[in-house]
């Protein structure tokens, strides 16, 4: 069941989005996240939804996978939307019974909320779907490298992130193994009261921790054998170069930004 999580995974399909410079992807995603919250009427929202679906299509990652990722947060979306629906009392009253009052304002905000969260998740997961984790951390490292000047250990942090990403699947596999091993010895993990279940987790996490320390020592050894000595003087296999694709992506984003601003100015905001 732990293996079903798709958020944060990478699907190499070699699409246009995959070939973008990861640095521009990060910046563009940040732009879209701001944009998603900046739009205030249905025209802007429509533009954003269209663009998001366009990106999904361009990424060539299968729709099934993408919506599987969304499924895990459906509950959150429904919950926040319902909250908006019942608590917002702006606008005309559509429906009123007992103590509940549903207004147009409530309906609009609920729709906005749901669509925004979906777009938010889609756009940010597209970033990880189309960028290998190493490239991603690499890009973050390069984007943050000015911070080196004020003595933030950017390279070290990026390396820590890479290693964490590298070992997550290994540790998940290990949890699976340990769980099976403990179950084989008669441990029951999904019955009993909450405290009993919490207690049953101890024999899973203790070996996990011990093994993790062993792994950490081994890995440090392997890294040192391969002459790792921090970020100084390191070269990179992958060069990052802005290309015509990045120009296209930036152009599209600029149009989107201008579009949303114009819509905001010329049309009434609904929330």
């Amino acid at each position: 069941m732990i293996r079903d999580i798709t958020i944060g995974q990478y699907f190499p399909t070699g699409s246009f989005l995959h070939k973008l410079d990861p640095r521009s992807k990060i910046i563009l995603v940040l732009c879209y996240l701001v944009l998603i919250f900046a739009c205030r009427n249905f025209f802007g929202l429509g533009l954003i939804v269209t663009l998001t679906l366009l990106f999904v299509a361009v990424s060539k990652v299968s729709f099934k996978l993408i919506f599987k990722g969304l499924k895990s947060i459906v509950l959150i979306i429904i919950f926040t939307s319902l909250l908006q629906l019942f608590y917002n009392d702006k606008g005309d009253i559509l429906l009123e019974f007992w103590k509940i009052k549903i207004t147009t304002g409530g309906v609009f905000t609920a729709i906005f909320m749901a669509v925004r969260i979906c777009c938010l998740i889609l756009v940010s997961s597209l970033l990880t779907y189309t960028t290998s984790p190493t490239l991603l951390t690499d890009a973050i490292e390069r984007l943050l490298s000015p911070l080196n000047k004020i003595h933030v250990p950017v390279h070290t942090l990026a390396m820590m992130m890479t290693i964490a990403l590298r070992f997550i699947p290994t540790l998940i596999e290990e949890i699976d193994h340990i769980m099976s091993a403990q179950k084989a010895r008669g441990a029951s993990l999904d019955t009993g009261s909450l405290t009993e279940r919490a207690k049953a987790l101890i024999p899973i996490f203790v070996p996990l921790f011990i093994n993790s320390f062993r792994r950490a020592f081994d890995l440090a050894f392997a890294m040192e054998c391969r002459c790792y000595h921090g970020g100084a003087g390191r070269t990179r296999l992958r060069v990052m170069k802005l290309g015509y694709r990045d120009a296209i992506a930036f152009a599209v984003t600029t149009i989107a930004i201008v579009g949303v601003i114009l819509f905001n100015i010329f049309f009434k905001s609904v929330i």
Partner: protein
Amino acid sequence: MNETILKFEDVYYAYEGDEGETLPNAVDGVSFEINKGEFVAILGHNGSGKSTVAKLTNAMLVPQKGKIFVKEYDTSVEDNELKIRTTVGIVMQNPDNQIVATIVEEDVAFGPENLGVPQKELRTRVDNALKLVGMYEYKDYEPHKLSGGQKQRIAIAGVIAMQTECIVFDEPTAMLDPKGRKEVLAAIHDLRQKGYTIVLITHFMEEAVDADKIIVMNDGKIILTGTPKEVFTQSDLLYECDLAVPQVTLLSKAIKNNGINMPDDILTTDEFINAFTANIKQKRKL
């Protein structure tokens, strides 16, 4: 002509215990020489100091007494560290714990990246190393989607990409299934053909039978060195050190003890079959 690539001169090493006390010597007066291009196997039971020897070879540990030379470089001199680690590389037992990056080719590039190799050359080095271990098609894979044998070959490629001349394998097949074992051994033998110097630390006697030289360790000491034939004929001594001689060797010895004429130095199934059929044919003639 015979250039020495690795030389231990009466080396002692003892670990420190948790309270700072000195533990008994893990390596206890070891001397040997390994020439360029040789394939040397180191055998020994658990805790006999094999891994410690491996760590001493590339200055990850420095001997408390005695000297170790990699080519002409003394491992106790700190400035030699880089030279030493680009000459001798280590592949460890656990395939999961020595892969650093999240994509195969980036992991292979990790070593040379640290050395500051320029990007163009990095590319060719990585591609060549991956081709050499037969993993080029997997260069975009995530390591956790590979089998143990494949991961081990990636680790080998990572060492090759640093252009090391000598590779020390510390029980590289101990955690693999038979298929993975075969793959890794095939890769090691390929490297041998290509002229790499190979030190194979192993539990499996069968992996040592075609070595140029075998070093047998027990409790931190070398108790036996020689060609496979010289070593495996000493089955009693090996038995004392908890080491099992290849089964065919034991079998032919048992047959010989039953009064059938068999040579002492049979190490592989093929040799056994040849000797045995020769025997039978001779009997028929009589």
